[in-house]
């Protein structure tokens, strides 16, 4: 591992240990700005970490970003690492992020599904779910993006433990999900929640479990439109945007449906770039361009949130 985050290789994929070491480096280099919170433990007892970027204050309004809830979507964890460094690098910038951090904190969970991520490195590169076991079932794991208490058990999730979209035995059965639920509830002042997936070039807002439009649909649609325009301005990557159910398909128990129902108005989920050639095996050379263009969209969402605190 490098001795500083400046020499860290952002153009390569990394293991969980390397990413956790990177987080420690970032905290050590910037102890006044960055801290590492342990918000829970996984099924296999790995710690779940969140980076907190804060200029101080108590329980300030906050923005949450998570990457890697589906473990095989490696470009998301890699982008999360790049985002972490970018937040620090942009702090001295007179506009943009510096202004946001004057008012708000940012929480970044780079590896949201650590057990699954380790499994993709050691045993099965295509593993998507958690690693929880269920009595009476041969198959392992739950789709953590079907395990939230928002239309849980409805259409668009499977009750079959062998399915890639297995919802789990009950809502929040997965410690990785429960950890975020507990954190969001105890914090109580998160204003934007952005969950990042790959791949199909989409920016989505709630709902996924019902065709009922969210009350803030017009505003969320406009924010998504502006965010996608910013994203596309960098490399011309073409994104679609809209609600989950109208843009892709019905999916119950999803992350941002739950966060929206908790009162977090600016709830979005990304599906990062797809060249149409590699899917989940996006070459490492595309990590930085993917992260760069996504950051453009994140800036729009974060700036809008700061300008429209509620």
């Amino acid at each position, binding site marked *: 591992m490098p001795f500083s985050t400046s020499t860290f*290789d952002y153009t*390569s994929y990394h293991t969980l240990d390397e990413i956790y070491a990177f987080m420690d480096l970032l905290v050590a280099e910037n102890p006044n700005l960055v801290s590492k919170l342990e918000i829970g433990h996984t099924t296999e007892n790995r710690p779940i970490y969140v980076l907190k970027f804060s200029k101080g204050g108590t329980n300030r309004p906050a923005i949450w970003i998570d990457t890697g809830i589906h473990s095989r979507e490696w470009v998301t964890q890699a982008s999360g690492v790049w985002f972490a460094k970018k937040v620090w690098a942009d702090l001295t910038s007179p506009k943009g992020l510096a202004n946001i951090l004057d008012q708000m904190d940012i929480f970044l969970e780079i590896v949201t599904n650590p057990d699954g991520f380790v499994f993709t490195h*050691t045993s*099965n*590169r295509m593993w998507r779910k958690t690693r929880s076991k269920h009595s009476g079932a041969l198959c392992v794991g739950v789709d953590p993006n079907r395990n939230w208490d928002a239309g849980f058990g409805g259409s668009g999730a499977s009750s079959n433990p062998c399915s890639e979209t297995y919802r789990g035995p009950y809502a929040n059965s997965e410690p990785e999900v429960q950890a975020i639920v507990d954190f969001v509830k105890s914090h109580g002042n998160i204003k934007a929640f952005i969950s990042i997936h790959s*791949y199909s070039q989409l920016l989505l807002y709630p709902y996924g479990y019902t065709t009922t439009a969210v009350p803030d649909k017009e505003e969320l649609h406009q924010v998504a439109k502006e965010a996608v325009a910013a994203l596309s301005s960098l490399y011309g990557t073409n994104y679609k945007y809209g609600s989950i159910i109208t843009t892709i398909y019905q999916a119950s128990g999803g992350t941002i449906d739950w966060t929206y129902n908790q009162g977090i108005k600016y709830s979005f989920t990304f599906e990062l770039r797809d060249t*149409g050639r*590699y899917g989940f*095996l996006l070459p*490492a050379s595309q990590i930085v361009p993917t992260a760069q263009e996504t950051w453009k969209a994140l800036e729009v969402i974060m700036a809008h949130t700061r300008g429209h605190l509620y």
Partner: protein
Amino acid sequence: TENFVGHQVLRIVPSSDAELQKVRELQELEHLQLDFWLSPRGLGDPVDIRVPFPSLQPLKAHLEANGVPYSIMIEDVQALVDLEQMQMLRRRRF
């Protein structure tokens, strides 16, 4: 370690309701052990399916028999996984 030798990722872009329905039905064929990287959404939206080697011929035959066009997005999944591993090792050594 799970091996993906001979696995292919097929891309299907349904252009009619009938094709879309046929692709949706594939999700029920559990014995083929298909891994939907992109699930069916709508007309014109790609559906990407990782197909284990033993299921390749039956699936392709099924698609062709039903007149559902497809293309091969990834010829050999393991080749890409190997390349990815090699690049990570190289970076680490460097």
